[in-house]
């Protein structure tokens, strides 16, 4: 590829991060540092039951003895855990109705394209908005409640539904799981809680929008979704943050539990600030642990992610297929440009009989972006007739970026059927020329080809968000397609 083409493509991938504004809002922000006192403070602020405080402290003591992992294929500046503030909340946060929401906050969410004003809400999508460490609003609660669906902030759930929370918290991702999950268990602040009772098909899409606003704060949210027998739910999370010079840590934990014949569809559109395009300064460290347990037979958990933001992304949404005939799916699009790095993939652990998993991963690297797909498929002895299909495709835009694939396969039952396909290609000169010859300029051609490449994954997103993802890809690659 010659220099002029590279220049066009460079131009194309130079993103103006349009969510980079800071909201000027009065907030309670805890001084940086972590100790048992910090945890007492957070727990106290949230008026948590004592079992939860104990659970946090146990995690904290464990975390002190753990080492930060370094096996992932990414480089980042050392994190000083004493330099992070572990709690920040807008001051006016005791609301009885959405009308009382701080107008600055409303403005922020409007700017992000997420109206919290119930009348103006997107049709049929309930939203939980998490601003720094707290949930500031949850819409459509009453309507959902009439169907028996609980959708609220994690903090409220800990107080209002302690039995359910206590039963499931840490049941999929124990606090000992890994360094960042353990830290999260100690200091998690807020997140969403969803409970779908037996036989209920959740009548609307649920979504949570995460926003980091305060400087030097970490975001440690915790999401727990439980789908009882025969129920189903589709949930989406979106994330953005202001542009800052220093890196910020986002270490979330998401646990999903699907009982017999339940279905959970979890979609992520992650657009945290990726950092300065030239120097790589700032940007979010997105170190997230996500895991779903298909505990019942015929249950199904499906992860769909579109990862375009963050300076460093390190996450593997996974499924434990314990119930017989259960199904796990992972559909991923990850884009790294400029100096972004991502090490992402999935784990599918087959335990039950006739369990099935599908992995479709699409990686796009541009600029000097570096990307790694890391996936593990494990077929346990008990998993008769398990099946896996994996497809990992990477596309390179320009010639200064990289893509790496590490598939691990561990089969302990001979009846398993495994299929794996992988490809890495440069964005084709022939495809670009074909578009050019039809009058389409190179910028638009790149967007079009990349969106076509991601099609299989975008098709898995809920309709409204598929459009959003397509748009996001275009913005991330700059310019627009009709």
């Amino acid at each position, binding site marked *: 590829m*010659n220099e002029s*083409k590279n220049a066009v493509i460079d131009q194309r991938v130079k993103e103006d991060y349009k969510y980079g504004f800071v909201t000027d809002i009065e907030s309670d922000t805890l001084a940086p540092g972590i100790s048992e006192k910090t945890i007492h403070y957070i727990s106290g602020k949230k008026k948590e039951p004592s079992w939860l405080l104990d659970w946090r402290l146990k995690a904290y003591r464990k975390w002190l003895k753990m080492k930060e992992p370094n096996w992932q294929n990414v480089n980042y500046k050392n994190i000083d855990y004493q330099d992070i503030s572990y709690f920040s909340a807008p001051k006016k946060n005791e609301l009885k109705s959405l009308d009382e929401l701080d107008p600055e906050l409303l403005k922020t969410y409007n700017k992000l394209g997420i109206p919290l004003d119930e009348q103006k809400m997107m049709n049929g999508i309930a939203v939980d908005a998490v601003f720094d460490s707290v949930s500031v609003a949850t819409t459509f609660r009453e309507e959902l409640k009439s169907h028996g669906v609980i959708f609220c902030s994690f903090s409220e759930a800990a107080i209002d539904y302690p039995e359910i929370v206590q039963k499931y918290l840490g049941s999929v991702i124990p606090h000992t799981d890994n360094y960042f999950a353990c830290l999260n268990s100690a200091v998690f602040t807020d997140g969403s809680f969803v409970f779908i009772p037996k036989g209920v098909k959740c009548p609307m899409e649920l979504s949570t929008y995460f926003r980091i606003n305060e400087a030097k704060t970490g975001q440690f949210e915790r999401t727990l979704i439980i789908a009882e027998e025969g129920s189903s739910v589709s949930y989406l999370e979106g994330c953005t943050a202001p542009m800052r010079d220093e890196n910020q840590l986002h270490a979330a934990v998401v646990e999903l539990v699907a009982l017999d014949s339940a279905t959970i569809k979890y979609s992520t559109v992650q657009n945290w600030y990726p950092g300065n395009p030239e120097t790589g300064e700032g940007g979010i460290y997105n170190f997230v642990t996500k895991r779903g347990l298909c505990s019942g037979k015929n249950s199904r958990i499906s992860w769909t992610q579109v990862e375009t933001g963050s300076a460093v992304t390190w996450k593997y949404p996974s499924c434990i297929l314990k119930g017989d005939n259960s199904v796990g799916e992972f559909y991923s699009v990850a884009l790294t440009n400029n100096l972004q790095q991502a090490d992402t993939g999935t784990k599918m652990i087959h335990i039950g009989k006739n369990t099935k998993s599908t992995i479709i991963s699409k990686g796009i690297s541009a600029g000097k972006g570096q990307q790694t797909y890391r996936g593990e498929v494990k077929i346990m002895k008990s998993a008769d007739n398990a099946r896996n299909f994996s497809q990992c495709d990477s596309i390179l835009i320009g010639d200064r970026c990289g893509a790496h694939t590490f598939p691990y396969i561990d089969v302990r039952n001979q009846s398993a059927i495994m299929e794996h396909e992988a490809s890495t290609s440069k964005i*084709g*000169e*022939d*495809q670009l*020329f*074909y*578009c*050019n*010859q*039809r*009058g*389409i*300029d*190179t910028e*638009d051609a790149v967007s*079009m*080809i990349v*969106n*076509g*490449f*991601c*099609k*299989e994954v975008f098709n898995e997103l809920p309709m409204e968000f598929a459009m959003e993802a397509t748009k996001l890809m275009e913005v991330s690659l700059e310019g627009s*397609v*009709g």
Partner: protein
Amino acid sequence: MLEVKNLHVEVEGKQILNGIDLNVKPGEMHAIMGLNGSGKSTLSNAITGRENYSVTKGDIIYKNESIVEMEPNERALAGIFMSFQYPTVIPGVNNTYFLRAAVNAKRKYNKQKEYDAASFLKFVKSKLKEVEMDSKYLKRAVNEGFSGGEKKRNEMLQLLCLEPELAIMDETDSGLDIDALKIISKGINNYKNKDRSFLVITHYQRLLKYIEPDVVHVLIDGKIIKSGGKELALELEEKGYSWLES
């Protein structure tokens, strides 16, 4: 319309075209024949401005202006179209979407109102009829899984939608069954008028049964060694190329 003057083209350091001269007037159809590897596609690529096809000497004049420095998409917008010998597959990109983007790029360039999805569908359906293509091809990804003949018809469809003034048909007739050959020829004949020119690259006299070139050129080793009327094609069919080479 198109004037190629003493054109020398190098591909990856290798000299392929060694001084081509062509003069295609508005409304004319020129056919180019020649052995495999003689440089026919190279000529098409050079005229349409493909990367790595560098003009080392000579000039390409289109509508009285040199286009050698123009970007490929600018040449396309100015009215030059190439039906590819090997049309490219673009996975995941819907054929209608692609066509609309192309047509709208051109309409925008011509300061015409761009088509929305609904009005474009109407427009494209009328063109589909002309190439007797089923509308199911519109829903598929660009050329993905298309048979050889289907790809060529899709090229013809794009031509009809984009309405170029100079159309280069690089072996559009290769790999077509008799019915498809008739459809494509009919398409070309209907499309041709006093303002539109064609440069048709072919190996087969059979295409020239259906369309009437004004001039037939023989290209060998990057040079046009003979030009003549339609009968030249017949002669080539009978005798092959060797009698010309000595």
